[in-house]
């Protein structure tokens, strides 16, 4: 051993040591990396497109193990773009944010909300642009929001918040009841999903042409679960469907029509959570 130490130059020995340690630790590190990434403790490497878009300082920060810091800074920057109604920049910034922190559900929800709801609303109001251009951009932003949500759902298949935000675009902006129902259906069985999603699925399916029978089966199933499901909107939708599908009287629910009742009591009907209006 001492002969080796005397005869071989130290630089060579150190290099051999580094290489040997590198080779030994690589399989351990690969294993640990897998465990860390699978559990979500370690963020996966940012995508190539995100790396291209990072500014030099953000890239250094990312390389310095400060991805969360960079991501938070970019979220604040995105809010600036939102304030300035700079939607292209906002989209680019969120592309980097979600690449840096793909497991943070709120980034996906925020990006979907900004593009699908805020940017489209801005197109409805922006008088500076010609009508045709506004209509075109309205659709473009709505679909960009949906695309963000789809990517988020792929990344976080357990998240119900992302499809709920996506459904809002279909419902409020594109007024596509069938798509809205489809998205709610995907979201309603996810872990932690709120109970109203099951009713919403039924309500929008009821207004999706050709799906009335399916909607009726679903809603009547909910109705039979018990009194806690006997919301005014649910009863109203069932009554509408009973008429549309010409359900025999013996099978129809006995509750009075909530609209008629409310007229009588001069009470307001049940409003949807978040003050949403029901589709026509």
């Amino acid at each position, binding site marked *: 051993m001492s002969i080796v130490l005397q005869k071989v130059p*130290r630089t060579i*020995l*150190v*290099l051999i*040591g*580094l*290489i040997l*340690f*590198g*080779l030994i*630790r*690589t399989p*351990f*590190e690969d*294993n*640990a*990396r897998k*465990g*860390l990434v699978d*559990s*979500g*403790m*370690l*963020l996966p*490497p*940012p995508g*190539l497109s995100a*790396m291209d878009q990072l500014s030099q300082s953000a890239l*250094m920060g*990312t*390389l*310095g*193990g*400060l*991805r*969360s*810091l960079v*991501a*938070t800074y970019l*979220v*604040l920057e995105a*809010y600036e773009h939102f304030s300035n109604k700079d939607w292209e920049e906002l989209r680019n910034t969120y592309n980097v944010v979600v690449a840096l*922190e793909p*497991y*943070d559900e*709120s980034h996906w929800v925020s990006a979907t909300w900004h593009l699908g709801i805020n940017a489209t609303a801005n197109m409805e109001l922006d008088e500076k642009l010609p009508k045709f251009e506004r209509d075109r951009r309205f659709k473009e932003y709505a679909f960009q929001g949906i695309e963000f949500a789809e990517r988020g759902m792929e990344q976080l298949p357990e998240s119900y918040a992302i499809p709920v935000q996506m459904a809002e675009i279909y419902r409020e902006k594109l007024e596509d009841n069938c798509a809205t129902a489809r998205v709610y259906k995907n979201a309603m069985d996810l872990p932690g999903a709120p109970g109203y999603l099951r009713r919403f699925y039924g309500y929008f399916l009821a207004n999706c042409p050709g799906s009335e029978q399916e909607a009726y089966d679903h809603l009547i199933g909910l109705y039979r679960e018990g009194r806690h499901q006997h919301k005014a909107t649910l009863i109203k939708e069932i009554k509408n469907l009973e008429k549309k599908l010409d359900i025999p009287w013996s099978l129809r629910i006995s509750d009075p029509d909530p609209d008629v009742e409310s007229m009588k009591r001069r009470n307001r009907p049940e409003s949807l959570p978040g003050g949403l209006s029901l589709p026509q």
Partner: protein
Amino acid sequence: MSEESSEKSLRAPAKAVPLFSFARVWTIASSTVTQLVRMKTFYFLLAFALIIVGIGNFNIPATPAKELSMIKKVAFGTMDLFAWLFAIISTALLIPRDQEDRTLYTILSKPVRRIEYLFGKLFGVLAVVATSLVAMFVICAIMIYSRETLYVSAEIQAMEANAQYTPEEMQAQVELIRQQGLRPELTVAVLASFLKASVVAAVTIFISTFASSSLFTIIISILVFLIGHAHSLLSNYWTTQTDNIFVIQAVKVIKVIIPNFQLFSFSEGIVQGAPIIAAVLWQMVGLTGGYLIVYVLLSLLVFVDKEF
């Protein structure tokens, strides 16, 4: 002159000294702690506290839970940054400075093995880094907890004013905020930052054994640290962008030689609420131990032949 008799008689042989002594490592480590404390390095904690107060007063346009989550991420990210930067700078100031000031000369002329000196310096730095991390965590915890309490009471007030939420619904909302607040799991994030800073300190000690000055050590260490974060990037990006066999081989060599620091950035995931898998955590602790031992031995390989 001496307590011995004045008549000329030869002195007795010295007491036997052990070939390796943890007591000597401990002596050097505690002297390193004193050195770093008296160099007023803890002033950086003051800077950290100011930054944290600043972060705590962020007015982020988001829901309380989201805002708390962002504050927490920035606070812990800053803590991680301070920890590894502190590890590099303080380590780089120690050995090269002992060489420049020739204090090493007097230390190594006592019965001290060079490996004891290296381990002593490393443990001293780690003790200071650990203490700093605990202090930084306390600062963060106070800030996060005060924000959390503020948000919770504001939300309860708002929900009570609305009068349409059941106690269960209110509890669920409070829980949503609490999940982003001060959770016991965050201490594991501090441990993660400590593991990273430990590896950084060991690598810096290695670099400082052949570097000529503190500044050179700091620059090279930071460079190695940055490259160490690009492991997966190197394989995913540069190797897919080129057919150049030289570049591909160079990337492979870098991956083998430079430590994989990216792997040690798992405090981010924990702060974001990822579940902590004990087995993986132990794996990382083991890996850190491996890095410390190997890098101190490599340092010794250079240092043992160093002539002063």
